[in-house]
């Protein structure tokens, strides 16, 4: 285990250096949620029945979670990029822990996400979103957000390692933008047709979003709906546990056996 910690730390260093050398991309991906917050908040906010300020307060947690769900895309792209480069072969011929490379990627991604959350929250504060709950609850919300990001990154790493090329990964990754559309991240699910509402409420994004709204004190927990939405914190933790338990071992195995 200490070998994994050591190798994983070295790989985390690699990941952070890679990110630092690609600052342009980093800034682009980090400003995306802010752009969306402003567009959605003011464009949709003025068309919906909900008052604009209230919608923007509703939207901030949703956008944070939708952005966290992009871990699938980011993880996939980076893993695909790596697996089609010779450097992976070198890692595989080194006497290092097999999980170190993907773990370094996942943790590096988490660091970036944590830092990237700050400007979104600041812009959120500027457009009317507030932390109504306690500091402890707010910290819990951020923790849950990062846990969810960690879980989605492993899905991405697995898909990225399995994808045939960087381009294929990019295309499939781009398709993940529909996931938050099928959830309560941008809109309340109450008025959706029954079957669609069920799908949306069983979407992990909905559970995490509801949990964040609850912990930040932006909206009360719905009393009716699917279990993960009516028990959002437990639902989110359960979803994250399942995703990590399934995708992390698969991704590590895929990495270990890559090409064998």
């Amino acid at each position, binding site marked *: 285990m200490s070998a994994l910690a050591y190798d994983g730390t070295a790989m985390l260093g690699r990941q952070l250096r890679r990110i630092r050398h690609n600052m342009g991309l980093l800034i682009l991906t980090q400003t995306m949620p802010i752009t969306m917050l402003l567009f959605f908040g003011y464009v949709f906010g003025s068309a919906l029945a909900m008052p604009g300020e209230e919608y923007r307060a509703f939207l901030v947690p949703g956008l944070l979670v939708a952005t966290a769900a992009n871990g699938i895309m980011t993880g996939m792209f980076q893993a695909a990029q790596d697996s089609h480069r010779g450097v992976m072969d*070198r890692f595989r011929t*080194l006497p290092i822990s097999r999980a170190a490379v993907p773990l370094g990627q996942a943790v590096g991604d988490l660091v970036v996400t944590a830092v990237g959350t700050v400007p979104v929250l600041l812009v959120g504060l500027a457009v009317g979103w507030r932390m109504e709950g306690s500091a402890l609850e707010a910290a819990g919300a951020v923790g849950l957000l990062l846990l969810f990001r960690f879980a989605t990154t492993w899905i991405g790493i697995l898909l990225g390692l399995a994808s045939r090329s960087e381009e294929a990964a990019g295309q499939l990754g781009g398709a993940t933008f529909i996931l938050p559309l099928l959830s309560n991240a941008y809109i309340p699910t109450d008025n959706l047709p029954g079957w669609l509402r069920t799908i949306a409420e069983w979407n992990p994004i909905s559970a995490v979003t509801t949990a964040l709204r609850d912990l930040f004190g932006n909206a009360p927990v719905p009393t009716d709906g699917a279990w993960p939405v009516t028990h959002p914190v437990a639902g989110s933790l359960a979803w994250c546990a399942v995703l990590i338990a399934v995708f992390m071992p698969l991704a590590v195995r895929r990495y270990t056996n890559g090409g*064998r």
Partner: protein
Amino acid sequence: MTTTYAVLSEGLEKSFKEVRALRGLDLAVAEGTVCGLLGPNGAGKTTAVRLLTTLLRPDAGSARVAGHDLVREPNAVRRAIGVTGQYASVDGDLTGRENLRLFAKLRRLPKAAARADELLDRFELADAADRATSTYSGGMRRRLDLAASLITRPAVLFLDEPTTGLDPHSRNQIWETVRALKAEGTTVLLTTQYLEEADQLADDIALVDRGRVAHSGTPTELKALIGSYAEAVVAHADAMAGAAAVLDQLTGSRPDFDRERHAVGAVTTDPTLTLPRLVRELDAAGVPLLDVNLRPPTLDDVFLRLTDRSTRAGTDDRADTQSGGRTDSKELVT
């Protein structure tokens, strides 16, 4: 003294879907020697290297690298080897220095930064050390790749086509490094397309064809296997038959004819057949000679002769490829 083998494989097999890449590879590389894996494209050289470096798992067969079983102790093998692939296997997003430091850390070196600087100097990369390696030239990247394989001195170094696409300067530099490593006792297994490279560097050559080692030996032994080519150019077409009779008798192999040049040639493995003797015998038989050559084979000839598929049409036994040199020697003249 018994020979210790740094690489010893028996019956290694590996298939990819429909393709049987290796069909029983037996390889023995003595410790401290340089072994060249030669063979046409698709012969299985790269698959062999990927198996021996733990990147692939064999379907059948066994191998020991630096004394460790490939399948049972992959990490012990990994600790003992250095690998430089066909494509530069360094991280393009990182600088040269960052790459070497990372690999030094992963090799648990206490002074990773110092080791990185040392290698950057040794491979003339100090000036480019802080640039992303994606901006490096092919030669620079290959040098960095080699440096990354030498962070700790490996017992066995695998080089998969280390100089493909390199300019002569970079190539010489890599050759020098290989010679220096051998002098320090490192065993080197290299695959190459360049026969000159194998001739220059390898103590032993394993000629790989269709997933097996078809022939192995020192370059001299392999050359002896296919023999020299004796050729007589005569004044007119009518004299060719006479020349052919003499060559047939001297070499014991069937001569072949080039009617345009009025040339007759035959392969010989007889070491007593010298050029003066060849001239004397032909002259004594009254052959009107214009030119005579006795050309020792190059490694190119060995390669073409022993791996060329066309010469093997209708033969499926490997013994035939050796004697094949006596019945058809067209390729030798090319």
